[in-house]
């Protein structure tokens, strides 16, 4: 029987989470929030605010220095290494710096999560080709990352993150290197996945994106997290922000 105390209906749940690197200052302070299944959030905050750090806690790359993180219902501090690996397989991550493998071509990079899951090669071929075409890279399918532009690499990173239809998708600045039209197209990809049930968090500096898609924001400032509810327009968000801070 699983320990009830460790079970949680949320995809992710943070309780009093703090994070510091080595002996440095606290980057994240007393973070509390939860992600419901099927929710969509932006993560915002200035450069250096701690977005990547917070995402690292969500994809089991870092452990909190204080507090408790639960993922897919289980507290990470009591998870076995093998369970952590299973949880990681249900999380798709678009890394800010892509983390593509240079010795593999575009196809094999995107195929990686499916191969780790032991998927059949015929299925892999079909899905990967389809997805690469969708992100406009059918011609680059055999190209190696070093032969590709920043934006092209970014799209491969995105394709790899979504190819296995993860339960939780974490995208760290996924549109930083593409033009607005492609950014929109990629956002539709995330929305499509979200409709199929994937919980999505997109960290971004892109104000336009946040403005166009009406989703709540996890906003980081001074190490604290503020949740800004979905609004109809960007001005509404700033208004609310203003009012909150006045109080």
């Amino acid at each position: 029987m699983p320990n009830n105390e460790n079970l949680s209906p949320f995809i992710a749940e943070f309780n009093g989470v703090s994070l510091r690197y080595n002996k440095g200052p606290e980057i994240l302070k007393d973070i509390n929030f939860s992600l419901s299944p099927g929710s969509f959030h932006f993560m915002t905050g200035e450069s250096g605010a701690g977005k990547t750090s917070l995402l690292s806690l969500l994809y089991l790359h870092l452990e909190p220095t204080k507090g408790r993180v639960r993922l897919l219902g289980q507290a990470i501090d009591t998870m076995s290494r093998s369970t952590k690996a299973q949880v990681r397989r249900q999380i798709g991550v678009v890394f800010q710096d892509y983390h593509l493998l240079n010795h593999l071509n575009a196809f094999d990079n995107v195929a990686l999560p499916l191969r780790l899951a032991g998927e059949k090669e015929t299925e892999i071929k079909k899905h990967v080709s389809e997805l690469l075409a969708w992100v406009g890279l059918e011609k680059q399918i055999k190209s190696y990352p070093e032969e590709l532009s920043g934006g092209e690499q970014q799209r491969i990173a995105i394709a790899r993150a979504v190819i296995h239809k993860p339960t939780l998708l974490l995208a760290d600045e996924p549109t930083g290197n593409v033009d607005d039209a492609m950014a929109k197209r990629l956002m539709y990809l995330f929305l499509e996945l979200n409709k199929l049930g994937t919980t999505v968090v997109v960290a971004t500096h892109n104000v336009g994106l946040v403005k166009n898609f009406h989703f709540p924001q996890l906003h980081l400032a001074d190490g604290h997290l503020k949740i800004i509810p979905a609004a109809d327009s960007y001005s509404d968000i700033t208004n609310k922000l203003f009012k909150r801070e006045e109080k």
Partner: protein
Amino acid sequence: MAKRSDFLFSKESSHFFLPWICALMVFIATLVLAGGIATHNSLKLWQKSVAESLTVQIPTYNEEGKPREELVYRDIENALMLLRTTPGVLGAIVLNDDQMQDLMTPWLGSDAVVSQLPLPKLIDVSVDAAHPPVLEQLKADLAASVPDAVLDSHRLWLGDLVRFANALLTLIGLILILLFATVAITVVYTTNASLSIQEHILSLVHMLGAQDLYITNRYAWHNFKVALTGSLIGFVLALPIMFGISIFLKSVSGQILQSSLTSVQWCYLVLVPASVALLTFLTTFKTVWKFLRRFL
């Protein structure tokens, strides 16, 4: 396109070092072990002679070099009588010229003409290995009734040989341990080097949810294949040298050295490349398993 399962290994990771170290170590280890087995076989033979064989020599010529004629037969008679009544002696027979020839072959070669040599008459005494006769007593009795007879127990010089062979076997054991330790250290070293070069790959694959056991197994099998290839090369190269040495030893030593191996002993030799490959598998497994702990 990279092979389906090769995503864990980039080009830089293929180490040229490991297969050649394995080849060299297996080459040396096979020869050393073969030498050890031959020594062991010879040792068994010598020990058997020490335990079982006892000869009494009756000189056929006296000190001045004159034939002793019928005195020889009287001595043989007396010696046989004494021997056959000694407790622990199962039997005693005088060797004829053919038997002498056989006996001498290992030492003098088959073309020596035994009958023309001033050899003593030999009485071969078979001994009850469980209850051997008391040698000192037998010597004294023999001196009393057949003063010219010489009791040769082979014990003296064969005893030295046995001690030497035993020391050699210990040395061979130590060398084998050292060779295997070298393999293990090389595996730890090359594996760690390759892991550091590929840390970014491992870190990513780990983040994508690969199990420790999966990564570890892949590395261990990869190195196992590399080591097995190297080991077989080393083994195959050792074979002609082994045969060469064995033929050479036969030609110089006759049958004193037992350089031919039984089929079970051949299996021991085949175990050398197999155990180097297995050792590589286990060492790699442990090294990678430990390395992966750096990731959450």
